[in-house]
């Protein structure tokens, strides 16, 4: 992968320099960007003097001032706290001009938020007793504010007031939740003070330029514990967002105009692309935003006279064989595809040359899931190498360039074009199950419901026995499932089944729909588990009882 950070390519330097301790995140960010830069320059000047003598060769023309700084892109924080997110939002709200008007009700708080960071900086220069007073004052303010609203100086997790109240009324579990939060709040505050103290007492090591130290990485991954809050999406009111809403994507009018202008500016490149393609190079498009429409336009405007093959790399059941088949069987009208890659390539090459035609491969997302293996990429690169085949591909995944090694890249002969369109990835993400909807379990719930409705009343009874048992035992650390013989006896009690066999017959239906899984224990007994989250089951039961 070609990384455009200045700092990644200087491993030798890194080795020579005296190692500084891995910095705490706070110290890194506390320096304002300008300050940091100044530091960098100063140090790099010194370094230049030192390293001139080492006769190190560094690339001179490869990087320019408008490159993205590595430190921006790969911001490495060894310690993430819960408050990062809140602080961010806070500053965002404070910064945005709109809000200042609406937040006049709590001027004190806003003021404090604004002045918080200067305060800390002042502290460094002030004598200790003054510092202590200030610290107390900050804590006081924080505590008094935190009760009133959610974005206060301190750092509560996001508990919108209304919902918290309702929760408290509705279920006892959320009461304990909020209590926990209270405790958390306290401990957080203490922690924060602690951190402040540490910061002030230690003399700051000299800030140097961005270096990825391995220590930081291991520090980050050492703790198994996940320090995020325990909130789940179950807190949301409307879990199931209608599918229809997905269609209208909200973009402000100005952005709409600008996005249109942007794509129009890329259309100017079409002739040049054709020129580049005709000279035997291939084209790869990158940048945020869907590039499908742009490529479709290109195809429509410029490639009307050429045979084209459009490949949706994001299509989840795409195979490399189907691509080859469509070229060899559908386009070149052969009867079958040879099994060996080399034969396929030479066959296509020969037939295209004989016919004297140029074939265009338009690959949307050459980094798609099904094309992410080396065999697929080897095939595509060999195809692209053919003189009469011209490839235009797009990439979106951040690690896409890792797909190609040296020899594949040289076969592809890519020229890279930045076409950031900011268009929503509608088709590209449509095959994917989004984390949000998947997590919210709307799909699972609805399918559960529909299967349940089609069951006989006896089967419904059996299923609810399993559900109830699972919910009763959810506190058990290693829940093994409901043993089959227990289920049988329970079913018999309720006159749901008369024989072992009948129960098994009922269960096969559940197994077929994957509503129930059978786990075998060491002693050979069968245990039945429903592979659905307990909260969902709870919801399902409640719905059903109503």
């Amino acid at each position, binding site marked *: 992968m070609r990384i*455009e950070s200045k700092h990644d390519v200087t491993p030798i330097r890194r080795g020579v320099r005296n190692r500084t301790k891995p910095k705490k995140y706070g110290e890194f960010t506390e320096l304002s960007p300008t300050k940091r830069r100044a530091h960098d320059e100063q140090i790099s000047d010194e370094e230049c003097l030192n390293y001139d003598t080492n006769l190190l060769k560094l690339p001179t*023309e*490869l990087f*320019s001032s408008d*490159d993205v700084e590595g430190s921006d*892109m*790969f911001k*490495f*924080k060894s310690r993430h706290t819960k408050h990062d*997110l809140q602080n*961010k*939002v806070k500053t965002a709200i404070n910064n945005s001009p709109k809000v200042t008007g*609406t937040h006049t009700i709590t001027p004190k708080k806003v003021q404090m938020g604004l002045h918080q960071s200067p305060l800390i900086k002042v502290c460094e220069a002030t004598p200790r007793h003054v510092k202590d007073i200030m610290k107390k004052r900050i804590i006081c303010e924080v505590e008094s504010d935190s009760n009133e609203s959610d*974005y206060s100086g301190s750092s509560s997790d996001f508990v*919108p007031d209304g919902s918290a109240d309702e929760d408290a009324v509705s279920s006892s579990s959320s009461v304990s939740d909020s209590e926990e939060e209270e405790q958390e709040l306290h401990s957080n505050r203490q922690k924060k003070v602690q951190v402040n103290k540490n910061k002030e007492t230690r003399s700051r090591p000299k800030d140097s330029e961005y270096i990825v130290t391995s220590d930081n990485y291991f520090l980050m991954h050492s703790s198994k514990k*996940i320090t995020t809050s325990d909130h*789940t999406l*179950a*807190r949301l009111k409307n879990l199931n*967002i209608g599918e229809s*809403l*997905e269609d209208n994507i*909200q973009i402000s009018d100005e952005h709409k105009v*600008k996005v249109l*202008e*942007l794509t129009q500016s890329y259309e100017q490149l079409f002739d040049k692309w054709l*020129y580049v393609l005709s*000279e035997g*190079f291939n084209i790869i498009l990158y940048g*945020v935003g869907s590039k499908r429409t742009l490529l*479709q336009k290109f*195809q*429509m405007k410029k490639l009307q*006279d*050429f*045979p084209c093959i*459009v490949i949706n790399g994001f299509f989840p059941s795409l195979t490399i064989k189907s691509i080859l088949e469509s070229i060899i069987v559908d*386009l070149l009208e052969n009867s079958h595809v040879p099994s060996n890659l*080399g*034969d396929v390539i030479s066959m296509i090459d020969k037939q295209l040359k004989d016919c*004297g*035609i140029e074939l265009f491969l338009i690959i949307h997302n050459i980094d798609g899931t*099904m094309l992410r293996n080396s065999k697929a990429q080897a095939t595509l690169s060999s195809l692209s190498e053919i003189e009469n085949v011209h490839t235009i591909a797009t*990439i*979106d995944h951040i690690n*896409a*360039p890792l797909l190609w090694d*040296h*020899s594949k890249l*040289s*076969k592809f002969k*890519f*020229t890279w*074009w930045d076409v*950031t369109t*900011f268009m929503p990835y509608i*088709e590209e993400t449509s095959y994917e199950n*989004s*984390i949000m909807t998947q*997590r919210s379990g709307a799909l699972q719930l609805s399918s559960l419901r529909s299967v349940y409705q089609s069951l006989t009343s006896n089967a419904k009874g059996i299923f609810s026995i399993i559900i109830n048992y699972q919910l009763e035992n959810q506190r058990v650390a290693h829940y093994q499932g409901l043993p089959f013989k227990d289920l049988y006896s329970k079913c018999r009690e309720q006159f749901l089944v008369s024989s072992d066999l009948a129960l098994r017959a009922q269960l096969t239906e559940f197994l077929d729909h994957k509503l129930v899984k059978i786990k075998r224990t060491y002693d050979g007994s069968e245990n039945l588990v429903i592979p659905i989250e307990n909260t969902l089951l709870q919801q399902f039961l409640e719905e059903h009882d109503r």
Partner: protein
Amino acid sequence: MESTISVSKGVFIFKNKFNKSKQFKKKINLFDRLFTKEPWYITYKSNWEYIETEIQKLHHRTYNVLLNDIVNYVQSFFGNYNSEMMEGIIPSATLLTGVNQPDHVSQFITLVKKIKEDVTPHVAIVNSQDSSTLKHLVENAVSQLIHGSETLEYDEDEAREVGSSQFKKIKKNQCTMKVLQKWYNITYTNASPKKKKQKYTNKLLVIIIPDFESFNCSILQDFVMIVSSYTSSLPIVFIFGVATSISALHKSFPYHVSSKLLIKVFHSHSSPVYMNQVVEDIFLTHTSPFHLSGKALELLTDVFLFYDFSVTGLIQSVKYCMMDHYYGDNVKSLCCERNRIEEVVTNLSLDDLESIRQLMSFRPFVEAQLDCQTKIGLFEDDDFFREVLIKEMHKLHDYMYTFYICVRLLLCYIKDIPKNLLGKSVREVYTKCAVESVTNTAAFKECMMMIKFQSQLKLADSIKNSLKIINSALQIVSPIKPLRSTPTKNNLNNIALNDNLGESFLRTVRVHLLLFSRQIEGANNEVTASIQESEELDNDIENVPGNRYKLKEKLLKATRTDRVQSEFEMIRDRFVSYLEAMFNKGLQPPHSQTFHEIFFFSDVGNVRKQIVGSPRGAQHTALSNPVHYLQCSCCILPSLESISDTLPDVSVAYKLHRECGKHINLYDWLQAFASVLKPDDDQRDHDSTIQVRFTRAVAELQFLGFIKSSKRKTDHVMRLTW
């Protein structure tokens, strides 16, 4: 146009009137219709073809020695392939090629060609991608060995005679070693009796494995073992291309396999050497029709040295630069051979002339004209402008000629200077010279200082070398008459360079250098007599023992008096100042020349983006600072880190997610997202549009690869970056 979205297939064909049964021969190249009429395209095409043939020639020259060695080695088994002598042992050559595998393709192709010409028509080249199993490997090798011969013309009659037509139809999946053996027996051993007499008709079978490391070890081992069992009847020779080191061969072949191989190792050039050669011989000469500015060359060599070590890649990049240089600009058709200038200038349209007047380097040229009439004429009178243009073009050609020779001369003098201030190769010196006027730099001055310390022998040597360069350069231009007139000594004092550049400049430099070299060789290195006399005077004092005070005084005096130079030193000083003057004249940077834009490609920034893509950087910029692309008024941020509600949703989500650790709580993330978008809305929890927007943003971030779902904790996602 049909839609290309379907839930059942991912590949869509647009035949666009293409029909295989119809012959498309009449349309030779559909692309060509686009640009062929344009003068710039014609010039570009012809120039690139010229460069391509030059590269081909260079390939031949560089590979020649090595390939000849290999061919000779292979040939040594030709006559005396004696099965009794080496039982089960396969002769094999190992070619250490270096890590830049893509470059080797051309090398192996020439090797195959050469072997086919000189040794045997039966050559198989087997790539690792075509031999995933032993079966494939054998099929591939055997079918190439059998069928390869029939494509060659001179073998055709022989094949017919022998009656091998039955083998012509051999399908690939029937190719085994047994078939090969049978075929070989029929073709050679049992051939007509007249052939049996000539023993050497028994042709070798050569199998080339160009990418040894990419092969599966066990497959190769088996293959070698199988082949070794056939050595009694089949004269097979292996050629391995090894990219890393010979130890790779030893590692992948255990003793029982390697004992079957008779290995001889050949070394090829390392790729930086080859790259230097290509750059120096093809692009950094005045014969090249297209010139890279210092920065452009630096970019390309940086890509080479720091990314891929691929000379093919470098050449492709130069091609891209060239394409970019010519693209859509008829003015660039002036960038052609010298003898076509007049023709091209007369063909230029008025618009083209106007765009030439717009060139940046034209302004200083106009300002330099003292005569008001010429100034007006340059703008008004097109014919006059054409004339001036032709003159300037010739001047530019002269300039380039001198410039490249001077670069080489400079290198010749500074090559051995410690610290290599200006570099060790032509390309390094060229980039230094092309970026700024090198004679004004500290490095150049230091180099000249160093030359002032050089010994007589060394100096004479470098002058000789530089004379060689000049002589060879002049021979390119015209067969030079041997210089008979011996330069007289007295004209040495008024050595001055006249204004001309080009060939005449070189001739004068040559004469001057000859003079200097003669003088330096003949110069007396002894300190002159006057000092010796004074030393004799001092001798009396030194004779007095213990007069330390006097000695001290004498030493002090010696420091005060100017050291008198020897004859050699005087000449050396004069020579160095001559060099400075000469280089000052010859090494003016290209951008100081009028109309340099036409010949020198300098739009590095633009081309860099295409050659060295920066997908990650673009994504980061787009997400953290959308204004960069959108140019909208609403999203201007005080700093890169800050968030505002007007940003695109993905951008907001991206910025928030960067604040999180390895795991992100979706609920918290959503709340943060919501409060950024609607900070004053208490009811945001009920607002499903926010939720939809967030869902979409998260899905896009997942698609871009920043996050993935995690099973560690409910409703959490994993961050994939840090």
